[in-house]
């Protein structure tokens, strides 16, 4: 897989440190599942955490015997199912067929994934050749391609590619001809649509 658009250093460090909103961590975990390059960069940022861990000590009250007497739970990580990387399988509760889509019109569908409220995450299904309404962003929007590809004013984004859109980007993503496009999108602010119709629908569809 040729991935061209990656996590940036701020997101990698934030993910390594564990300070991202859940929806952004979901995107980071999914991209790293697809991208060996970012997996290696993440390991380096986690090594910074290892260095920070060596910075100081606080005396323990209980010793190693108390520790060995404890049992801890270890939930197993999910594996990829079809186009869905492991982290998303966990949220969806299965593969693509388990996604509970809601129509947004024009064949476009979305499914909100349950996360903390600090940011929202959803799966988007865009039929080949269809455009998502022109929208800008109040905050940051991360869009990760899981199937197919889309183009906007910035570039082409294929499977594994991550678009990081800030406030300045006003764009019309168009799904390429060929396979329908499925994306994971996360944002820490409501999207801003130029046309009044989608804006009225926004509270209903939570986009």
């Amino acid at each position: 897989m040729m991935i061209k658009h990656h996590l940036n250093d701020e997101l990698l460090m934030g993910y390594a440190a564990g300070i991202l909103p859940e929806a952004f961590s979901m995107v980071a975990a999914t991209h790293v599942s697809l991208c060996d390059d970012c997996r290696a960069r993440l390991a380096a940022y986690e090594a910074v955490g290892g260095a920070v861990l060596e910075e100081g000590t606080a005396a323990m009250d209980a010793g190693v015997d108390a520790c060995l007497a404890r049992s801890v739970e270890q939930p197993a990580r999910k594996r990829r199912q079809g186009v869905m990387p492991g982290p998303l399988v966990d949220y969806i509760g299965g593969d693509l067929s388990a996604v509970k889509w809601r129509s947004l019109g024009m064949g476009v569908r979305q499914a909100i994934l349950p996360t903390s409220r600090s940011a929202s995450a959803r799966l988007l299904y865009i039929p080949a050749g269809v455009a998502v309404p022109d929208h800008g962003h109040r905050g940051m929007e991360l869009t990760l391609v899981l199937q197919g590809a889309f183009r906007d004013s910035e570039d082409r984004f294929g499977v594994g590619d991550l678009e990081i859109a800030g406030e300045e980007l006003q764009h019309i993503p168009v799904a390429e001809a060929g396979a329908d496009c499925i994306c994971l999108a996360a944002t820490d602010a409501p999207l801003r649509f130029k046309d009044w119709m989608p804006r009225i629908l926004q509270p209903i569809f939570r986009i």
Partner: protein
Amino acid sequence: MPYGAFKSAVALSGATVTQQETDWSGLMIKVRDERDRAAFGALFGHFAPRVKYFLMKAGSTAPVAEDCAQDVMATVWAKAAQFDPTRASVATWIFTIARNRRIDVARRDRRPEPEELDWMGEDEPDQADVYAAAEETRALSAALSELPEKQRALIQRAYYGDLSHSEIAAETGLPLGTIKSRIRLALDKLRLKLSETS
């Protein structure tokens, strides 16, 4: 070549090792492969107080930090099979477990994990890779201690969970460039490793 002999050879060849440091990876491998309680005791003695300090810095009270540090070290014992010394130093690996415990305690934002790689538990790990992973943490510790106080404090706050991701992006004093130059070598090694195995 046994790990200790490899290290001595590196030291004699005039490389960066100037003092004998405890071989945490070697102890962790004894825990992993032989369930060696004495080795775990030594690891506990070093890392449990560091995990407790880390969790207190992250905002936990001393009793909660004590309890969670015990959980973290119990996880180190229970998940020892997942320790791969060519991918991370013991400090780095324990940091990731402590980070996850900190996130559980905060009960705000979950942190989903990437898929596991399938190349865990190679029979004969390359001792040079093991050494490189441990050395990387030492080099990063040295790099951290050389940073100006303000920058160092920012890095610490981020890893203690006391800095938001938007603050990372906005914070011009954050020495991401400095860190990047320090970890470039480690990155190259990790990339090589990943391309060999995937």
